[in-house]
């Protein structure tokens, strides 16, 4: 690839990313009231999206080989349990991550 082609390739990635980030704000601008359906989606989507993001983070985990996804399962459970118990974001994240690091470095 020439430098120009590289610049265009990166520009296409920027364009694709920004299209997905700006589109909803362009379609549903401040000037017109947001349709009720879209307003409903805005309220209903986040819980679903957080679920999607957790699955997205764990998509590479193989249940049928290696450690069978056990370290991930345990660490997610520890993170969730810590958070339900103490409701302290930092504690849950640090605790869950430390648990995962110990599991993959020492146990599995």
């Amino acid at each position, binding site marked *: 690839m020439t430098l120009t082609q590289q610049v265009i390739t990166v520009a296409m990635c920027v364009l694709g990313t920004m299209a997905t980030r700006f589109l909803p704000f362009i379609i549903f601008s401040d000037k017109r009231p947001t349709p009720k359906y879209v307003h409903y989606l805005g309220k209903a989507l986040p819980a679903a999206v957080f679920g999607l993001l957790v699955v997205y983070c764990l998509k590479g985990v193989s249940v049928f080989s290696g450690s069978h996804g056990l370290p991930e399962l345990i660490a997610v459970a520890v993170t969730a349990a810590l958070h339900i118990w103490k409701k302290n974001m930092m504690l849950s994240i640090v605790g869950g991550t430390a648990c995962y*690091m110990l599991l993959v470095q020492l146990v599995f």
Partner: protein
Amino acid sequence: MQKTVVRRRALAAAFPYTVPIFAGFWFIGLAYGVYMNVSGFSFWYPLLMSMTIYGGSLEFLTVSMLLSPFAPVQTLLVALMVQARHLFYGISMLDKYRGLGWKKYYLIFGMCDESFSINYSAKIPEEVDRGWFMFFVTLLNQLYWVSGAAVGGLLGGIISFDTKGLDFVLTAMFVVFFVDQWLREERHYTAVIGVGSSLLCLIFFGPEGFMIPAMVCILALLTLFRGPVERAGGLA
């Protein structure tokens, strides 16, 4: 004078929320910079790409696209597919980003998974300016990512990673946001729809192609069950 106080207070409130992102972004950003370096690119590439594209998984993909024959249309389509989930973030943030002047444009530009999650979920204290709070969350997160990528690109193969498993910090963060949202809602229809659709699509379509089908499923189910979900109430 008054403005400085407002900004400083917002920065002080925003910073603690971004600490886990610092750990996660520096780790993954470094790995990305190193990957670009060993693929034969100077540190300018990870620096400029992390500033302009600012989306982790796509940036990793761009490396292999830069090493392949020139295909701009295909590149654009891949970018749109990988990043499509941002459409959902935008729909969720329509109200929260409203009326923030010039800051709104930067907030939308920098709306990655992590900045969206914090800005959507954070309980911003009343005395803190919402616009500046979300601005600093977004800015700090981007600074972590760009600096991590640039340093990784500079150091290249010199670094060896003995921090195995640290990348779990971002997974843990999304688990926390998920649990937070779960505890806040009386009924859990939407959370179950999200996890269920994602898992089923992951099984059927595999890790590389499940995002778009999962998003379509979520949208279809939320539309189909709009009545029960709205009647259940308690949507936070």
